[in-house]
């Protein structure tokens, strides 16, 4: 088993909480893990990426080789496209569709989404809207984890345990809300996969 995921977003969007949940699930499954993070200057509203590698064998490089990622999991649509050179031809692009506009020359959203749709294996999900529907306006990241869960060979239950682990301190209500958000993301992606393969 081997899973290479590029996590993408903008500084401050909290992609590391996604890495924490996936990482927790991997460790609980007895798997090896390497996760390269971005710290420092690029965090100030700049583009951020994290390379998450999970395997049942030794992992050498901390960085995912170009063309080898099984998935780009992005919390922002333009950022999902920035890392396409990493995506394997069979890999999945799973991205939030809500743009994060902190620059004047942000391209037209329609064009960005058109580019996303050109990728044969893609899921475009309005994670912000789904999170809001579940009264969890800050739960966009967990929608994305739920969407990703459809395409990766980590047990869903282990991801749920990851959520219990990171939100446990905040009480049962927060945990339940995030579990529901995770489930909603998963449901959306399951539907999208079926549609794509029809």
């Amino acid at each position, binding site marked *: 088993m081997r899973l290479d995921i590029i996590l993408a977003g*903008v*500084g401050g969007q909290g992609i590391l909480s996604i890495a924490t949940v996936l*990482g927790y699930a991997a*460790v609980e499954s*007895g*798997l*090896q*893990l*390497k*996760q*390269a*993070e*971005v*710290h*420092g*200057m*690029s*965090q*100030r*509203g*700049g*583009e951020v990426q994290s*390379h998450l590698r999970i395997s049942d*064998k030794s*992992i*050498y*490089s*901390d*960085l*995912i*080789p*170009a*063309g*080898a990622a099984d998935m780009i999991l992005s919390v922002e649509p*333009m950022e999902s*496209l*920035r890392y*396409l*050179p*990493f*995506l*394997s*031809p069979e890999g999945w692009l799973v991205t939030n569709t809500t743009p994060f506009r*902190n*620059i004047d*020359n*942000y*391209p037209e959203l329609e*064009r*960005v989404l058109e*580019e996303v749709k050109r*990728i044969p294996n893609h899921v475009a999900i309005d994670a912000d809207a789904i999170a809001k529907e579940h009264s969890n306006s800050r739960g966009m990241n967990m929608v994305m984890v739920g969407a990703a869960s459809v395409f990766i060979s980590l047990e869903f239950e282990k991801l749920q345990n990851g959520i219990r682990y990171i939100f446990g301190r905040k009480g049962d209500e927060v945990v339940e809300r995030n579990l529901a958000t995770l489930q909603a993301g998963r449901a959306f992606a399951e539907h999208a996969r079926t549609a794509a393969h029809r």
Partner: protein
Amino acid sequence: MKNDTVLLLGDEAVAQGALDAGISGFYAYPGTPSTEIMEYAQTSRQAADGNVHRTWSANEKTALEAAIGMSYAGKRAMAMMKHVGLNVAADAFINAGLTGANGGLIVTVADDPSMHSSQNEQDSRFFGKFAMVPILEPSNQQEAYEMCFEGFELSERYDTPVLLRLTTRIAHSRAGVARSTPQGQHEITLPEDKRQFVLLPAIARKRYKTLLGRQDAFEQEAAESRFNRYFEGSDKRLGIIACGLAYNYVMENYQDEGCPHPLLKLSQYPIPRALVQRLVDECDAVLVVEDGMPVVEEQLRGLLNRGATVRGRMSGELPRDGELNPAIVRAALGFEAQPGGSVPEGIVPRPPALCAGCSHIDSMNAINAAIRDVYGDGRVFSDIGCYTLGALPPYNAINSCVDMGASITMAKGAADAGLTPAAAIIGDSTFTHSGMTALLDAVIDNTNMIVCILDNSTTAMTGGQYSHAYGRLEQICAGLGVDPDHIRTLRPTRKTHDEFVQIIKEEIEYEGVSVIIPQRECIQTQARRAKLAKQGA
């Protein structure tokens, strides 16, 4: 993953390794990518229980000197810094090679190839060679952890400081680390020779001979080190030397099948010549893969490159600058690139920017209005911190960023040359790091210049660490001899813009050293404090 395994960043693995190896003091100034070593120590229960020193120092030089002092007293100590921090601490570092160590002394330096968050990409292994001390360069987080044990032992065995070299990718990458049984701290034991640390010429000459005399032993240690490994290979058209993290990029391309070429994994220096000789003897050519500068490759080639066929960054198989990655190394190994997509047109970069509401924005606007818009662009010397982003649009406010503290000294030099007005912009933490002596120079000469100390009450750029300037700036400036009438403090906001501009204009009229202190807390640390207060309530 085993049960005794913890998930740690490379930086955290160093901190945990040092703690488990019985360290008594961490000394550091924040700097990406080294900051998390100290931050981990500061939140560690184990460090608190052991009363391990773990507060920040004013700069890398004071940090390393304090670590040398702790080593003198017989306890294990570590100084941590980013690569350019070692320039600041270089005087202490090179001379520590001569004084030697008493308690184990490790200098951990995190290099930043590709300059993700730095002014240059210098390779600290050059410094290690310069100081003639052993260098450890982990290839993964587990080795980073274990090298703290080995490093302290090596340091004590040979009475020498040891350089532990990290790069960004290992410092900021998380992996499972299996811990060893923690060891207790040392008791105070003074050096047997009470003049060992006195580098008077007569003593320094002796100490230098001692250091020279140890070089063979250092090399022998490297030859026998378990971190250096010679892997046999049947395809001898090529031999590979893979340094530190670069070993992973080589192996990524072979995986479980193993590397078909003879391979020397190099993680401890000085370079063990016997192992290199063996590789050169049995292979037609040697590829040197190292992250950073071609330190090993250059030595192997020599000035005239008349020996073995050596490939690497200098011959063009690998790029001369920038960080390595699996794809770059893949090409150097002769494999075709893996197919991948390309970035579509119209995907624009998202450069880092000052946060909305940041006090530096108000400072940049006032300085532009009072200086650039009146006298033209080119008179504002700046420094290292978030405010360096003032060089970018929409501000285009600053004209220099060279090294910590250089804003004040460069403004002084330009003022000495006759440039008026000449202004310096420096952050509060950068000021106490290296700006105070610069300001003293200006005071002594009564230089006609303006120094703006942007006081956001933290070391913001690296994530909000304690600033030594906190609550002391006016006192420090007055103590250095700045006329208190020309130390002007205000709270920079949109509302106080006119007042700020007026103050700068008044101080431009004053012939002498003026210090203006716009004072408003970093919005990031403010938000964090508010959150903590809420949680505590």
